[in-house]
């Protein structure tokens, strides 16, 4: 049986699923309901001197009838007094001693202010501290948030101040709005941080109203750039986390709490495979509610059982070694597309994609069924089934439609792959709407594996 209990940089919790510092962790009542639903930890909505928010605050990108592929917000840190937040943290910890409550903090860049904030948060019973060096809007204009996270020296300095006072683990939350996210991660390492969390939201403008010309979200006719999150940012988050978790400059990688588009157990498993010790969730909880954690726990446990993993550490980081620089990929590995004629519905998306977007190797020129094995007989097919003059068929009067071949789809509509030209790019299999219809099959080249690095060094050696 899978055991999800987690010890992340010294913070213990029943499972690795945390709510990220955001509206779902705004107050004690919410956090307690979240813990009842099953969340293992919660990073409190960032505490600091209360701010005034604007309305509206969110906007989203919908995609193909699906809501909120990406969410954007211009909300600031907690708008509630520090003492109220701390009082509620104390109450939550009293009632839920085994769950992790992490206090996210952001105060002005003064050593004493940070010392005091750290002591008060720990005094309230927080299990750990997360330094919000990532908020990309509003707070950064006041010298906080990403204004700190984008300057490694500032990030290191403030983290050092915090470490001077802290007794609990200190996590530094990284902003992705920087050229190389590893630079600030290294600063955190030098400052002896206990862990990292990444990524914070990405600077964004989600769209513009074509009637008013006002970008969203609209605040009395104007907008401001916000922070982008949700399923759309997951690939960006995974890449940045891979970069940080593979980086050994200034010491071994720190424990990482993964953030960015996590919405279900599969996402969580991927982040853990990329080396994360916990994952933090916000958008999915805002979209569907706290209950999503039920299947995250259940699904991850069942998957771990199937794979024979007992603890999260058993598979944590397993994919890191499988990410490499391009120059270490095998140039002599070759795959080609295969179309399963029995599954093909004749939509021809693969043909269009290959012709317009790839390498012009998927053709519409079949005329014959399998003669001897796979279909390869082809000639001019266009005459088939494409008479120019079409009439509404009347069963009594008109012959049934011409159907060629042994498959449900008439053969002239089923595309054919020219394997000699196929470069194995995957595009056709990506656009095909039918599961498993287009698969990529290996065609051994008979050549031993060779990478670009090996090939070029061989050239250098020969030249030498």
């Amino acid at each position: 049986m899978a055991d999800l209990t987690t010890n992340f940089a010294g913070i213990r919790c029943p499972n690795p699923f945390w709510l990220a510092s955001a509206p779902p962790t705004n107050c004690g009542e919410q956090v307690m309901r979240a813990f009842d639903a099953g969340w293992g930890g919660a990073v409190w909505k960032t505490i600091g001197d209360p701010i005034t928010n604007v309305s509206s605050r969110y906007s989203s990108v919908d995609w193909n009838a699906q809501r909120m592929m990406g969410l954007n917000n211009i909300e600031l840190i907690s708008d509630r007094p520090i003492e109220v937040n701390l009082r509620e943290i104390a109450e939550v910890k009293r009632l839920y001693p085994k769950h992790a409550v992490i206090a996210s903090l952001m105060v002005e860049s003064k050593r004493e202010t940070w010392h005091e904030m750290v002591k008060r948060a720990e005094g309230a019973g927080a299990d750990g501290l997360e330094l919000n060096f990532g908020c990309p809007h509003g707070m950064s204009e006041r010298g906080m948030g990403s204004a700190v996270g984008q300057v490694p020296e500032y990030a290191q300095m403030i983290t050092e101040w915090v470490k001077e006072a802290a007794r609990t683990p200190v996590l530094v939350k990284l902003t992705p709005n920087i050229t190389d996210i590893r630079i600030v991660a290294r600063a955190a390492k030098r400052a002896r941080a206990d862990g990292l969390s990444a990524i914070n939201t990405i600077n964004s403008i989600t769209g513009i109203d074509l009637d008013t010309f006002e970008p969203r979200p609209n605040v009395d006719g104007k907008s401001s750039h916000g922070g982008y999150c949700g399923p759309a940012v997951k690939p960006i988050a995974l890449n940045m986390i891979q970069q940080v978790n593979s980086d050994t400059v200034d010491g071994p990688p720190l424990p990482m709490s993964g953030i960015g588009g996590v919405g279900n157990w599969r996402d969580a498993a991927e982040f853990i495979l990329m080396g994360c010790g916990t994952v933090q969730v916000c958008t999915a909880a805002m979209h569907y509610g706290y209950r999503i954690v039920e299947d995250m726990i259940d699904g991850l446990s069942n998957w771990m059982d199937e794979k024979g993993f007992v603890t999260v550490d058993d598979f944590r980081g397993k994919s890191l070694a499988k990410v490499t620089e391009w120059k270490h990929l095998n140039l002599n590995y070759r795959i080609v597309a295969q179309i399963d004629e029995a599954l093909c519905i004749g939509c021809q998306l693969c043909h269009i994609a290959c012709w317009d977007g790839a390498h012009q190797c998927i053709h519409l020129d079949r005329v014959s069924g399998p003669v001897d094995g796979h279909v390869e007989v082809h000639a001019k097919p266009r005459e088939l089934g494409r008479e120019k003059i079409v009439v509404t068929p009347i069963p009594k009067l008109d012959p049934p439609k011409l159907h060629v071949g042994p498959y449900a789809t008439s053969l002239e509509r089923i595309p054919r792959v020219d394997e000699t030209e196929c470069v194995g790019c995957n595009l056709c299999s990506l656009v095909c709407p039918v599961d498993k219809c287009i698969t990529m099959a290996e065609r051994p080249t008979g050549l031993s594996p060779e990478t670009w690095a090996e090939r070029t060094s061989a050239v250098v050696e020969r030249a030498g």
Partner: protein
Amino acid sequence: MGACPTHIDVPRFIKKIASGNVTGSAKTILEANVLGASCSRVCPVEVLCEGSCVMHGKNEKPIEIGRLQRFAMETFYAAGGKLTLRSRDERAERVACIGAGPASLACAAELRQLGFQVRAFDRRALPGGLNTYGVAEYKLRAADSLREAAMVRGLGVEFENREIDAAGLEELEREFDAVFLGLGLGAMHRLAVEGAMSSSVIDALDFIAGYKTGTRLKVAPRVVVVGAGNTAIDAACAAKRLGAKDVTILYRRRRENISAFQFEYDHAVREGVVFRWETLPKAFAATERGMALTCVTVSQDAAGMPVPMAGSEFTIECDVVIPAIGQSPLLELLSQAKGVAIEHGRVAIDRATGQTTNPKYFAGGDCVNGGREVVDAVADGKRAALGIAAWLGKRMEAHVG
């Protein structure tokens, strides 16, 4: 789009709806089919676009192309959308369209787009042909048909309410450079049975036209419809909607032999229409309380032909009988068009150009195909317009040369 007789670019118009460009979507439809609105309501999409949808291969419901087209067209008309003429030179040549139904409207619209001067003649007061007078009201309202005709008029087509007779035809031949025969079919076949001339026997198209134009507001309680084609179904449903209590359809063959589309049949069953298969009316006689229909049961012989069974006579009581057993061709008028060959009661044409055996005459729609769908008439009309343009173009070249 290969399955649509008018070759509407279906992926294009759907993508345009998806992108919020509904105007562009409607124009994509109208470019291929100027009667896109009525087609979106009356087309048997199951055997056309939706029947060819690749989603069938995934065991999923086809994309609802008909309803999407309806949405695009309704939005277009609701916004007061109008077709604009393509940029082209006006041509002096004049073309007469006989009939103002779907075939002629499509032909006329296309000819105007090509610059020709067009005048359409119809014996009825309103344009639109069967779209206005003959399609069941629940599918297509007369007003919707008239809206489409008005759009064609907006392209510069002139309409004249005039029945063309032999003399008229001669006149048109003199005054116009080409004539398009889009005159549809003639009167409905009469039942060749005793008593068929009774005033309680109403032909199905007259019945539907009365219902659609508001001249018929009720019907007696017991109605018998003879025949099981799409018009019979429309008449039976119209009778139900007009308040008939019992509507029975008599058909001399079996369920699987009907020429009505499956969805039409299903619709009639839902409306409460009763079908009596293998039943043939033999005689009508007036009774005190209405009419008595003497019928016989028929069976099919080895060749599938219906054979009345001896001694199987029975009587059905009713108030009104509506025969819907097909329309006869307008042979009388057609025979006046000199050199226009008629085969099996239909105008013979070159399929690609619509040209008849008299090069000045072109034809399309029901008078050519014996009675098919609106979309087939539109496709015929469009092809004929291009045929006329090509022919007139050649004639012009020869003249100049």
